[in-house]
């Protein structure tokens, strides 16, 4: 099956294109700022940036409805921004401050928002996959038609618990969309060095799960595939797998020697396949926005991100008494 791409003349409104542009740009600028704060020592530990992969989560969020759930790995900043969490609260968690989403106790990899139905932020590769199926299980049990999106990497796709979850999700017809964000590397290990069955979505066939491969640098294609997957789940037909081909421009985490791929490979993706540039061109060539319009959006977003950074720097660290809270309900 061919990778889904958006059609030459996509059926999309100017408004929607602009919102994709805005949301993807917010993620990118936010992540750049996070990288900067990390360099200054204001963010510590592991910090995994989402730069390059923005179209995946923005496209899929466009296919979600209120009440749908999402859960992902440690590479989670983009998912949180895309589901409407406050950039200030996310950034303040990155700096380990009291007004962060987890009061500074979770950090970059562990954040949650019940209000936005965002269930983390998980640091153990693959652990979010059964958890996502379990969230879908809870909705099916309650008899509503909500859908859960569970995001995981090409590396995670090789975990045993993913296979276990596929089996049970299909066995029990759970309304879960498995989104494999195939950015082609798990830390320094390319997909080719990790498996001889590199088309991850095809593994669903072993369990009878429908799926497809999508161009993840094309936000319109992602949204379209997402809508199909969601419709499948909402109709009670069980899970669906979307393998989204994407690329991370930055290192795996902030401390990545980047010796496993060439500079040219990264540069080529950035120049030829960038998802934000794609939408930017659609906006300009379609006459939906002028350079000036886009400049003012850029400025707007820069301000949002700077405000988040200032907030995150100014917010106090958690009170020492917080060490002992939130262990038991």
């Amino acid at each position, binding site marked *: 099956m061919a990778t889904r791409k958006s059609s030459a003349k996509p059926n999309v409104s100017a408004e929607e294109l602009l919102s994709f542009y805005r949301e993807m740009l917010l993620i990118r600028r936010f992540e750049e700022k996070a*990288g900067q704060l990390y360099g200054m020592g204001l963010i510590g530990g592991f910090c995994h940036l989402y730069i390059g992969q923005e179209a995946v989560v923005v496209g899929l969020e466009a296919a979600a409805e209120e009440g749908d759930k999402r859960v992902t790995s440690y590479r989670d900043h983009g998912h949180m921004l895309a589901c409407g969490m406050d950039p200030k609260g996310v950034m303040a968690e990155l700096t380990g401050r009291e007004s962060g989403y987890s009061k500074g106790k979770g950090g970059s990899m562990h954040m949650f928002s019940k209000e936005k139905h965002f269930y983390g932020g998980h640091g153990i590769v693959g652990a979010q996959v059964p958890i996502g199926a379990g969230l879908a299980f809870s909705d099916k049990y309650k008899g509503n038609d909500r859908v859960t999106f569970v995001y995981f990497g090409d590396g995670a796709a090789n975990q045993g618990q993913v296979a276990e979850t596929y089996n049970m999700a299909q066995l029990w017809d759970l309304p879960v969309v498995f989104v494999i964000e195939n950015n082609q590397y798990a830390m320094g290990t390319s997909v080719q060095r990790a498996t001889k069955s590199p088309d991850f979505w095809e593994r669903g066939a072993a369990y009878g799960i429908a799926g497809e491969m999508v161009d993840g640098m094309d936000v319109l294609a992602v949204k379209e595939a997402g809508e199909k997957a969601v419709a499948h789940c909402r109709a009670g037909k069980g899970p669906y797998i979307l393998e989204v081909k994407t690329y991370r421009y930055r290192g795996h985490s902030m401390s990545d020697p980047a010796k496993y791929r060439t500079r040219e490979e990264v540069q080529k993706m950035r120049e030829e396949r960038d998802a934000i540039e794609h939408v930017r061109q659609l906006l300009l060539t379609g006459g939906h926005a002028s350079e000036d319009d886009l400049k003012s959006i850029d400025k707007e977003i820069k301000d949002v991100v700077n405000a988040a950074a200032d907030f995150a720097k100014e917010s106090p660290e958690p009170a020492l008494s917080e060490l002992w809270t939130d262990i038991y309900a």
Partner: protein
Amino acid sequence: MATEILMPALSPTMEEGTLAKWLVKEGDTVSSGDILAEIETDKATMEFEAVDEGVVGKLLIAEGTEGVKVNTPIAVLLDEGESADDIASATSAAAALSSAAPVEKAATEAAEAPAPAAPKAPEVDLSPDWPEGTPMKAQTVREALRDAMAEEMRADDRVYLMGEEVAEYQGAYKVSQGLLDEFGAKRVIDTPITEHGFAGIAVGAAFGGLKPIVEFMTFNFAMQAIDQIINSAAKTRYMSGGQMDSPMVFRGPNGAAARVGAQHSQDYAAWYMQIPGLKVVMPYSAADAKGLLKSAIRDPNPVIFLENELLYGHSFDVPVLEDFTIPLGKAKIWREGKDVTIVSFGTSMQFALEAAEKLAEDGIDAEVIDLRTLRPMDTDSIIRSVMKTNRCVTVEEGWPQGSVGSYISSVLMQQAFDYLDAPVINCTGKDVPMPYAANLEKLALVTTDEVIEAVKQVTYR
């Protein structure tokens, strides 16, 4: 305004590095994502990318310079239309920031961090588990557990049971007998043999507002799922700043059965007892099994409920009450005595009680405490008893190193040192994998005679 580019921290531990190579020169225009330099740390050489766009006004640190401290300005970036003259006015905003960085402050404050509430004179809840005069009926532990689940499932439709062979087979050890008939396949769910996966699904279901009971065919197999139990169920409340709950029970037989060898005979009490975020229960009697399981199901936290195959068929008196629970974290005194305190839990209670009876024949009056819950542990009850007897022996099935007993010993040393007249002795399983041969298996397990011997030692008889 001109901005300074600072030496970045490229790893969680980096304090300084070598500016190995500049990949831009003065006058170059750069945009976000362009690689500016290669920086060498003790771990690796890494590329350093531009975040802002502009023109490289000046390189402040020559390539090849070693020991460049993080946050030192290494270059100046000019906006369009600015000249190198603007460099002088570039403020060291970032440097100012770095002095406000929280790292050092945290280190000094750590010493002042409040310790957990200081131990006070033990306050022990001595209330009876049920009112005096309550009618009793004999019931096996197996039936008590089943009744506990059934009652809680009737009371709360968010409670459901999942595990291998729990539904149609009626439970590998027949604990869930009849539940499928009463509650149907929606709430009594047979899983495939995938402990890691279904434990994770149950955690997700708990995040989603349900109250799962996960049955492990035995806890030996829960090792496949221990990541989900600890990393996902136990820690998420903390990591989410209190937003997320995992109200669920992981239950099943734990410890040695009979002649099933090393992989099927292990006591996990000490393992789970260590984890903040978990509660751990290990009942001995049928009444406790019922009252504690009902509490565990209602508890908003993840609870590890350790049963024992050999106890399933034992009968005990169980109170006949509409709704009978026993609070988690409350020990039970089975036998009062003044000469020595024997602390045990779960199946090992049999040896503790038997030893106490035999010791009585020799004129040694032992107090026997059943912890019932290992986390939170009712150490106050132990301390209170030791303040009276001045001697303590612990009895458990698990291995000696890092045992429940060694924790109790340390609590007693720190909180009741002046009351101890003899070193605490821990009777444990032997420090070997469980052998299969009948004679060796017997040797590997803790015995009543060993408990008696230990008591004689601490009472100097």
